[in-house]
């Protein structure tokens, strides 16, 4: 997989996660008045960073000696394409009097940030394709 297809694929995955995060935040905001509702967040970037770092360190990583296939191996190389976003229920933050822990202003800020992030990703994706087209002219 060369650098063009890799970066197109990575941007595509990032856009998918951004859309998911936007929908989850929209759901949190719509339920900002419901008693006993707990907000949800999406985790993806930390797992992706770990996978990409493991690619860089794959050559000189620490490999355990195993004599059977079923032995557990140390983590050497994770393909970043196997990383999926996870929705996590956030029940540890403080709540209102009616048990709802959605902070509307913070949620609105998250929504704005996600929107801008998505727009930046589309710009980067657009750049990739237009650079290739320049070569073909």
């Amino acid at each position: 997989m060369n650098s063009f297809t890799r970066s197109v694929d990575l941007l595509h995955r990032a856009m998918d996660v951004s859309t998911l995060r936007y929908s989850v935040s929209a759901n949190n905001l719509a339920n900002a008045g419901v008693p006993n509702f707990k907000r949800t967040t999406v985790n993806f970037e930390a797992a992706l960073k770990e996978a990409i770092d493991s690619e860089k360190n794959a050559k000189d990583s620490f490999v355990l000696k195993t004599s059977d296939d079923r032995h557990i191996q140390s983590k050497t190389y994770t393909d970043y394409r196997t990383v999926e976003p996870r929705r996590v229920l956030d029940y540890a933050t403080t709540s209102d009097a009616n048990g709802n822990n959605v902070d509307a202003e913070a949620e609105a800020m998250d929504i704005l940030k996600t929107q801008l992030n998505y727009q930046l990703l589309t710009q980067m994706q657009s750049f990739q394709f237009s650079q290739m087209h320049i070569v073909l002219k």
Partner: protein
Amino acid sequence: MISSLDLLRYNASTTASNAVSSTQLSKALEKIKDGLGITNTEEGKSFDNYLLDAISYVNDSQNKSSALFEQVIIDPDSVDAHDVTIAMAEANLSLSLAQAVIDRMIKGWSEITTTR
């Protein structure tokens, strides 16, 4: 009178030139396939296999984008906006790339055949 050394030298030079030209061509095709992201290479495939692989990749990406169009029409809640536009841009790009390659090949071929 051709000595055995001359014969050896002649054989060496022709095989070397054949090797050079075919590896150059296959390297060029490798670069094109790499650019399109095709990874199913094996050793010893011939020129027309590479060409057919490249054309089938272009065809696959066009089919993938028209399958996505169908999905947008039938079930718009199952597909994202960027899925569709990225598939369209990829199909467009791979087709433009294939067209550029074919143009160059045809131009090269006609240059060779019209040379005295």
